[in-house]
């Protein structure tokens, strides 16, 4: 036996994973959880770019992005509940929280953010809802009465007060959206036993990828909804969105790569395990899919779309394609972090494998259902809250902020 061959044999034989590490406990559900909260946070950022930072080009989607965020927010806890062994005890996290737990704060942060987002929607939509209430029949009239909290007052003084409230809510909404998703990153980043997760950069990377996924989700859905509705897309809005998407994605992708490069450069004993993971079971989903196809290609596509004078159709179609690829990139990133981190045994000597089944409780089909639900909720919400501003509603918006 040649020495080379012997070394290979030995390498293969040294694999050992702890007996309890064979099973991957955090399934596809925990991949979806940060994915959905990220989309929520990102969509809110789009709305804030208009409402707080007054990027006027984004006005056509400023309301839509809030409703979009709410639809996804409504489903953010579903994967968690489906994952818990005892979902009936889930509220204990808020009733009897352990203050040292990085997870115990999620219920509070999520609820607080939900309240701010809902209030902001109600105040921004108030003039519209009052107008709709006057035209509505029985049931819808009751719905609008509840949503306007019985106030039909559209006097300049009332609208001026609304404007102040909206500015306040949108203002505190930005740090809250950042906290929501930065915090989700911290849930992973605080696990010192896992060399892939335990990095102070984790909240940053999660937050940037959240912004990216939210903006991409808005662009793609905006283009698709308008396409199916046979309405025109506001091209200035789309071009501005694409520029922001490119900007955030530059930061996101560069940080993701810097994080890996830092690990490689420091080359602690953890790098040995990480390298085995990234060039082992994660090679396909990380290097080929996440980095190679769904990061590098949209990176250049977005640059091309942002920097060159292109026809409206080109921007619309390729902008949507790039956005779709970014959405896949972020989903792959969540997968590679959540599942990838668990594939490394804490024995530091080997990796396990995970292949979700289609029909198991936390498998692929439940995941598809959970990802489709926000779209159903978005449709229902669109029946109540007009997603797009017509001239009438715009007049109210103009005076309300």
């Amino acid at each position, binding site marked *: *036996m040649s020495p080379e061959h*012997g*070394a290979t*044999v*030995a390498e293969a*034989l*040294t694999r*050992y994973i*702890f*007996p*309890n*590490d*064979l*099973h991957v*406990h*955090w399934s596809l559900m925990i991949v979806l959880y940060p994915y959905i909260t990220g989309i929520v946070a990102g969509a809110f950022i789009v709305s804030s770019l208009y409402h707080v930072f007054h990027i006027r080009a984004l006005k056509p989607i400023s309301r839509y992005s809030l409703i979009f965020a709410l639809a996804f927010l409504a489903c953010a806890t579903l994967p*968690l509940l489906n*994952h*818990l*062994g*005892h*979902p009936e*005890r*889930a509220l*204990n*996290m808020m009733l*009897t*929280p*352990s203050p*040292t*737990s*990085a*997870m*115990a704060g*999620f219920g509070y942060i999520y609820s607080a953010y939900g309240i701010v987002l809902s209030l902001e929607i109600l105040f921004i939509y108030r003039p519209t809802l009052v107008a709709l209430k006057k035209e509505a029949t029985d049931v819808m009239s009751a719905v609008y009465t509840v949503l306007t909290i019985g106030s039909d007052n559209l006097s300049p003084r009332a609208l001026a007060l609304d404007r102040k409230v909206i500015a306040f809510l949108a203002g505190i909404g930005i740090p809250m959206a950042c906290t929501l998703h930065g915090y989700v990153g911290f*849930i992973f980043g*605080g*696990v*010192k*036993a*896992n060399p892939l997760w335990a990095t102070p950069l984790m909240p940053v990377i999660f937050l940037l990828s959240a912004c990216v996924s939210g903006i991409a989700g808005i662009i793609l859905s905006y283009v698709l909804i308008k396409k199916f509705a046979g309405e025109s897309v506001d091209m200035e809005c789309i071009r501005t969105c694409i520029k922001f998407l490119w900007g955030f994605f530059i930061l996101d992708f560069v940080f993701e790569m810097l994080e890996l490069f830092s690990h490689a450069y420091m080359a602690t004993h953890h790098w040995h395990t990480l390298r085995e993971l990234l060039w082992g079971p994660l090679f396909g989903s990380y290097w080929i899919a996440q980095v190679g196809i769904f990061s590098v290609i949209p990176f250049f596509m977005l640059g091309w779309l942002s920097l060159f004078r292109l026809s409206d159709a080109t921007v619309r179609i390729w902008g949507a394609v790039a956005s779709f690829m970014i959405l896949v990139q972020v989903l792959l990133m969540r997968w590679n972090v959540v599942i990838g*981190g*668990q594939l490394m*045994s*804490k*024995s*530091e*000597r080997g990796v396990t494998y995970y292949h979700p089944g289609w029909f198991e409780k936390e498998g692929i089909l439940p995941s598809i259902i959970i990802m489709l639900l926000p779209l159903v909720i978005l449709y229902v919400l669109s029946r109540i809250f007009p997603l797009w501003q017509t001239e009438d509603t715009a007049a109210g918006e103009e005076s309300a902020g």
Partner: protein
Amino acid sequence: MMDMDAVQEEINRDRRAFISKVFQGTIAGSLLLVIPAGAMDLAGIPEQIPGMRAETGPFITRRKFAFVVDITRCIGCGSCCVADRNEYQVPEGNYRTWVERYIIDDHDNVYVDSPDGGLDGYQEPRTDIPYPVRDTFFVPKLCNMCEKPSCVQVCPVGATFQTEDGFVLIDQKRCVACGYCVQACPYSVRFINPVTRTADKCTWCYHRVRKGLLPACVNVCPVQARKFGDLNDRESEVYKILHLPHVVSVLKPGMGNKPSLHYVGLRREVV
């Protein structure tokens, strides 16, 4: 107004009665496996941890328990794993304790395995080692009962908690099975029990210890590779091992968890 001491006494009496009922139930079951039939009465069983039966009150604060595994003694027979399986209904594929076999060849390659957690013992030598073997040893693994436990830190509902005498335990009635503790444990001693749908792990046989008995695995070890005792008792074997010159270490000291599980003769190859 009732005197506060009287109220406290009332509470303590209720607790004692409750705990004693709980222990009578679980201990009776486990003793059947260790003690010949007919010896059900605890009074007939010698106390294995001095003074434990004199302890009153639900909380023990004067003791600091520690576990010592002597790697130089372990023969990999798997008796501890069998005793553990008998003591608890551990579902297939999950391990409260296991024994690893380390083999090092003369090219310094390290081979580790633990088929079925070492439950059947290591009766056959490995035949797939391409070079002459220069060293081999066994490493039993169990809960490290950390002084700074990651699992207690991350548990969102406080279901995993630490007692003052050094145990890290799980309240099965509170656990939501989020799995965060499983991720946080650097030693992978935790699992989600598919039957109870809660987190589960080695308890150092807390129910036995409270009755003055040694953990089941310590009791059955034929070579005294597993030792358990009170570090506040200067006569205990664990105190002597940890306070006299010995080659003693803990697993993954860099994690900062300060395990109460110590290893005599721990080798650098062991993770």
